[in-house]
């Protein structure tokens, strides 16, 4: 047993260690140490709680050790086996669990308030009830929202937005109903109202995410990250636990910033993403204007020849590269080029993957050194000085009409200036439009050479041609 003062200080230490865990991520070199700080902080928080309120019966200890063992085992297995392309799904799944844990902790506090120091059964402090209902509402919302996001990312559900008629009206009615329920619960502390809030938040979470299209999933995943933080903070207020309050605030602002970065990278407003409907049929009308202008087409040997004789090649990978599992072949190609004395760099658009920073992880997995990988704003001016831009599995993020064509749905979105390079090599299966349903002007430029085929097969063929 330790005194409450010591425990409070230890929780503060845990909170500070979590801050340092995020701080470590400012650089890949300090990141692993930061992660260890996070683990230590979590260990301190758990041990402090156990020392502070040590259960006196063995059943509780069995449940605690068994619960951590069971959950920990599942978590460790998932962490070890998940494929890096499936990272967005894993993160969405984890968000749903944070949401659900928040719901269950709030429910536990409702039925045994004395253990949490917020009153006695039937007489819980009104303030704790408000905090509890906010925590449970956000938690339940995060749970179903993340489940839908998971299903969309994992392909269990179509990425197309599902638009219910009058959905905005439905959302508003449900939102108002939620406020009424929270008010009623605060006044009466009736457990049934608690569960009504939970169910309503579960429904609302699902309804809010269903109309959002697959293209906007990076924003959704970031947004749910933020919500899981606010849910934790809500519970932190109920429990009066500083570690939980600090963490909730950190995670909440982290997710919010990532959502902002993703929105900006797509030139979309946060509100329009939330309202949903993007990436569906409405956008495909622009693509319907099929083009039969001629394009220059090349083979793997042409590409190999061009790049071998180049001074500088910038590779622009997109999610299509990851889908085709071409990253390893791509790195091999880059290695061969470097051996020929060619400078090779990678240019990453913020929404190149399915979640923030996803492409960087995929390249790191393929052993691409992180100091060869550059963000859009750091490398965009370099295209003009490079001989070849090698676009693999990306499309919309290279579309020059985002800069010039005011009628384009992606107008204003920051894009990579690949057209400034001496030659643009563009690997693509066919002439289909990109994710946003927009035709890419780049294909018809004089300095563009289309390489039609599967990204992995084409890259392997280039590797072979470079070997000769």
């Amino acid at each position: 047993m330790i005194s409450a003062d010591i425990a409070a200080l230890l929780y503060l230490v845990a909170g500070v260690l979590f801050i340092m865990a995020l701080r470590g991520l400012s650089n890949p070199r300090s990141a692993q140490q930061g992660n260890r700080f996070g683990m230590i902080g979590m260990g301190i928080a758990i041990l402090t709680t156990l020392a502070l309120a040590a259960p006196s019966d063995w059943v509780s200890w069995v449940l605690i050790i068994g619960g951590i063992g069971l959950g920990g085992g599942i978590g460790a297995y998932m962490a070890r086996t998940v494929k890096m392309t499936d990272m967005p799904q894993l993160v969405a799944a984890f968000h749903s669990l944070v949401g659900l844990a928040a719901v269950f902790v709030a429910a536990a506090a409702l039925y045994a308030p004395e253990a949490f120091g917020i009153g006695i059964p039937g007489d819980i402090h009104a303030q704790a009830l408000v905090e509890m209902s906010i925590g449970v509402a956000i938690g339940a919302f995060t749970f179903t929202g993340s489940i839908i996001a998971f299903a969309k990312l994992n392909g269990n559900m179509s990425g197309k937005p599902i638009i219910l008629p009058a959905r905005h009206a439905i959302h508003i009615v449900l939102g108002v109903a939620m406020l009424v329920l929270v008010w009623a619960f605060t006044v009466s502390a009736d457990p049934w109202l608690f569960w009504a809030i939970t169910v309503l938040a579960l429904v609302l979470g699902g309804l809010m995410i269903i109309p959002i299209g697959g293209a906007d999933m990076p924003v959704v995943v970031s947004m749910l990250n933020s919500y899981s933080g606010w849910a934790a903070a809500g519970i932190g207020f109920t429990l009066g636990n500083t570690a939980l309050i600090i963490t909730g605030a950190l995670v909440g602002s982290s997710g919010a910033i990532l959502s902002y970065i993703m929105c900006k990278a797509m030139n979309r407003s946060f509100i329009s993403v939330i309202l949903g409907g993007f990436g569906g049929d409405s956008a495909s009308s622009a693509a319907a204007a099929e083009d039969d202008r001629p394009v220059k087409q090349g083979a793997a040997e042409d590409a190999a020849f061009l790049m071998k004789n180049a001074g500088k090649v910038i590779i622009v990978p997109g999610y299509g590269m990851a889908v085709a599992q071409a990253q390893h072949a791509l790195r091999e190609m880059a290695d061969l080029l470097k051996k020929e004395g060619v400078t090779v760099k990678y240019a990453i658009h913020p929404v190149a993957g399915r979640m923030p920073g996803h492409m960087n992880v995929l390249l790191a997995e393929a052993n691409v050194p992180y100091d060869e990988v550059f963000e859009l704003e750091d490398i965009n001016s370099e295209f003009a000085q490079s001989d070849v831009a090698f676009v693999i599995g990306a499309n919309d993020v290279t579309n020059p009409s985002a800069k010039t064509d005011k009628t384009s749905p992606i107008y204003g979105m920051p894009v990579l200036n690949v057209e400034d390079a001496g030659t643009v090599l563009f690997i693509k299966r066919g002439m289909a439009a990109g994710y946003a349903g927009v035709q890419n002007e780049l294909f018809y430029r004089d300095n563009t050479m289309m390489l039609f085929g599967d990204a992995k097969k084409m890259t392997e063929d280039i590797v072979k041609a470079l070997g000769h």
Partner: protein
Amino acid sequence: MEATAGQTADVIAATAHAASGGALDPFTFRLAIFVLAIFVGYFVVWSVTPALHTPLMSVTNAISSVIVVGALLAVGVQLAADGNWISKAFGFIALVFASVNIFGGFLVTQRMLAMYKKKG
């Protein structure tokens, strides 16, 4: 005997309460921590390199599972009153979920970060 996390913060709050001449409510104190932590989070997260945004998400996932402290309190409740077994059961479920996240989140972050290598 039944010292709890709730009481801990109340101690901090009580200290602040005393220091402020009795004018400060515990909630105000917690709100101050919350608001300051949002600002800390804002600045710390902006300094995270975009290359590490995916590990940032998985690690924030792991640390937000510090909600496990609530689950532990619930699992450890004394089975005295009627409603307590419900709390114990809910606490156990929350404990399992949070543990999945803690281990899964930190380990997958570790796995990703180990892949980031420098040239040469």
